[in-house]
């Protein structure tokens, strides 16, 4: 392999990149936009959930229950309905997310004792949000129930009864359970996966469509030199991009960074190698830019989004799907990123992930080279 020829290819690629300043802008604009978009737009936290109430009794007790809802940070009582039909309308129109129906003999039921039900209606089209809202609602009602029970017991001569059990929970790594600490590292992975493949997926297809590929073939460059030479500038760009994204994560989104910089650089370099080679492979294997872009979107964005553990927990997926996630490089990189950012994990426990990425880089690299060789024939 000739270093001369290699650097010639690299220089040519850099010149081509420089000639298209718009795409250079994209390299920094796109990650910033994506990080802002997803960092703020993706959230699963529900607060101030609007509540409508159809209070069929309107008694002191039912008012007390409503006060509990109003006092909760998760809920906001926004409407009191006079009839069931208007409650239904409000829910269907999206004016409120939780509809409470308090029975018309509420206080009597309380006096009689036993189980007293308050209906909680939620549009469960979005099942996760519905689940969260129900959970919070149940907690508020449980709080009210406790108060009622204490009142009942003390009025019957019992001293305040202690709850026999109290849950003391300590959360590690993400103490405030802030979903942005959980989402933003994932966004970094997503952005790098997309940008990495994006950067290279067009290189070969572009040369082919423009006809400059034949010129390249007629020179004494070897396929390996072309591959490496083309990738070097994109690697540099990608690396700067990664640092850029991580800086946004730490300084803008305040995600804690508890690990070692060296680890982060190493992990990012490995992942970048994988995605760049993947893009290169797609680029070599498909001759049209349209197909290249569609493939790169499907092969990088979707797996990184769905299967890496970014938003959906992998261990809750069916076994068959979990098996597929092992084929997704983004999964390993995400584990590395989260571990380095949030847990401050050292080198040893993360060796399996590093090894997996290295393996991917090798395999994809070989496939890319083979495809490229075929293209030149």
């Amino acid at each position, binding site marked *: 392999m000739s270093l001369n020829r290699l650097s010639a290819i690299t220089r040519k690629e850099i010149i081509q990149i420089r000639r298209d300043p718009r795409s250079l802008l994209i390299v920094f604009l*796109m990650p910033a*936009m994506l990080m802002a*978009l*997803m960092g703020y737009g993706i*959230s699963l936290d529900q607060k101030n959930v609007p509540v409508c109430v159809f209070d069929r009794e309107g008694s002191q007790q039912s008012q007390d*229950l409503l006060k509990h809802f109003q006092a909760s940070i998760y809920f906001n009582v926004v409407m009191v309905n006079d009839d069931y039909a208007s409650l239904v309308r409000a*829910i*269907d129109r999206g004016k409120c997310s939780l509809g409470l129906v308090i029975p018309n003999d509420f206080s009597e039921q309380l*006096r009689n*004792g*036993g*189980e007293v*039900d*308050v*209906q*909680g209606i*939620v*549009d*469960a*089209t*979005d*099942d996760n*949000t*519905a*689940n969260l809202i*129900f959970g919070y609602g*149940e*907690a508020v009602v*449980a709080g009210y*129930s406790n108060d009622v029970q204490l009142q*009942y017991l003390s009025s019957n001569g*019992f001293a305040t*009864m202690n709850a*026999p059990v*109290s849950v*003391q*929970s*300590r*959360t*590690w790594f*993400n*103490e405030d*359970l*802030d*979903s942005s600490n959980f989402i933003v590292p994932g966004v970094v992975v997503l952005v790098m996966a997309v940008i990495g493949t994006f950067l290279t997926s*067009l290189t070969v297809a572009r040369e082919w469509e423009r006809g400059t590929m034949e010129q390249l073939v007629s020179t004494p460059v070897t396929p390996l030199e072309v591959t490496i030479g083309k990738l070097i500038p994109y690697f540099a760009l990608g690396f700067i991009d990664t640092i850029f994204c991580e800086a946004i994560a730490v300084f803008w989104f305040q995600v804690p960074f508890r690990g070692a910089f060296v680890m982060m650089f190493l992990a990012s370099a490995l992942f970048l190698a994988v995605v760049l080679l993947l893009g290169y492979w797609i680029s070599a294997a498909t001759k049209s*830019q*349209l197909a290249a*872009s569609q493939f790169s*979107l*499907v092969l990088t964005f979707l797996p990184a989004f*769905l*299967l890496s553990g970014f*938003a*959906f*927990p992998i*261990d809750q997926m069916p076994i*068959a*799907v979990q098996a*597929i996630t092992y084929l997704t490089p983004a999964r390993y990189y995400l584990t590395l990123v989260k571990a380095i950012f949030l847990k401050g994990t050292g080198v040893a426990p993360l060796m399996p992930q590093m090894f997996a990425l290295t393996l991917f880089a090798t395999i994809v690299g070989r496939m890319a080279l083979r495809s490229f060789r075929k293209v030149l024939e």
Partner: protein
Amino acid sequence: MLRKEFIQLLRDPRARFGLLVPSILQVLIYGYAATFELHHVRMAVLDLDHSYESRDLLSRFESNGHFELIATLNNRHQITDLIDRGTATLAIQILPGFSELVGKGQTAPVQVILDGTDSNTALIALGYINEIANGYAQDYAKANLMRTAPAIAVHLPDVELARRPWYNPNLESQWFFVPGTIGSILLTSCLTLAAFAIVREREVGTLEQVMVSPISRLEFILGKTIPFFLIATTQMILIMLIARLWFQVPFHGSYLLLGIGTSVFLLSILGVALLISTVSGTQQQAMIASFFFIMPAITLSGFSFPISAMPRVMQWFTYLDPLRFYLVIIRGSFLKGSDWAALWSQIVALVIIATALLAISVQRFHKSLD
């Protein structure tokens, strides 16, 4: 004109492949991978009290369908290891003296250590834990009361929230995601196909050839767009079949209404594609511009993440996203049996967006050709 367009598109076997197979794959994977439901949260328990009470409490956690007991520990140090490695998501610890405190009528702590890196899972798991602990507390207190003062125990009130989930009574995440994939797949494939096709003609130079032929501008545009409508319809039918037959997602609404909604949605996507083609000189630029639209469009549409959880400002931006409105139409048609009265505002919004986009791009198109 139509024929030419079709032939061009279908000549590339990879394009044919690329149209249908990724769509099918996407629907299947979304259906199975995309879920926030917790079926088995990995849990470790450490019982240092070894009493009837502690075993009773722990057995409630173990028998709860959401938790999966992966380790019964002997000492506290094992907890650190398990949580650090991610082997367990949470660890429940009962300290010695638990049963004594409970027996004396004092509050006994139950310690839970939670891995917060996946905050959604952690929050939901914590909710379940609190529910189970409260249930235990209630039962214990009630049993005690029954023994000491049965007359009073009988009349102890217990207020509960009765869950009434509408439209998706079993809270199945597939019912939420799979219909939504129709929207995201149509958006992605139609936008890229349309934008690319138009730009490619310009790049390769066949645009001028068409311009000098005796075809009117309208015929030209129609000739380009009808194939895409047909392709989109094919994809949509395919996905709907998978949704209904494979995932068994119910459909309560009106096919006609869905058809109208889809047509207007596709028109708005076409508008975006045309607009993109007027600002892109090369296919690469078209790809970047498409991407710049697709990413926010899908993220802000309520496809996976609730709009209600977004900051106010972002929620306003979602009104510019055709996918947002289309998702309401799709989900309404599938799950809610929504009729014209419920969906007219979505359709009107799509019409407005489509008209505005088409008007702007046709204008720019005229200008760029003259």
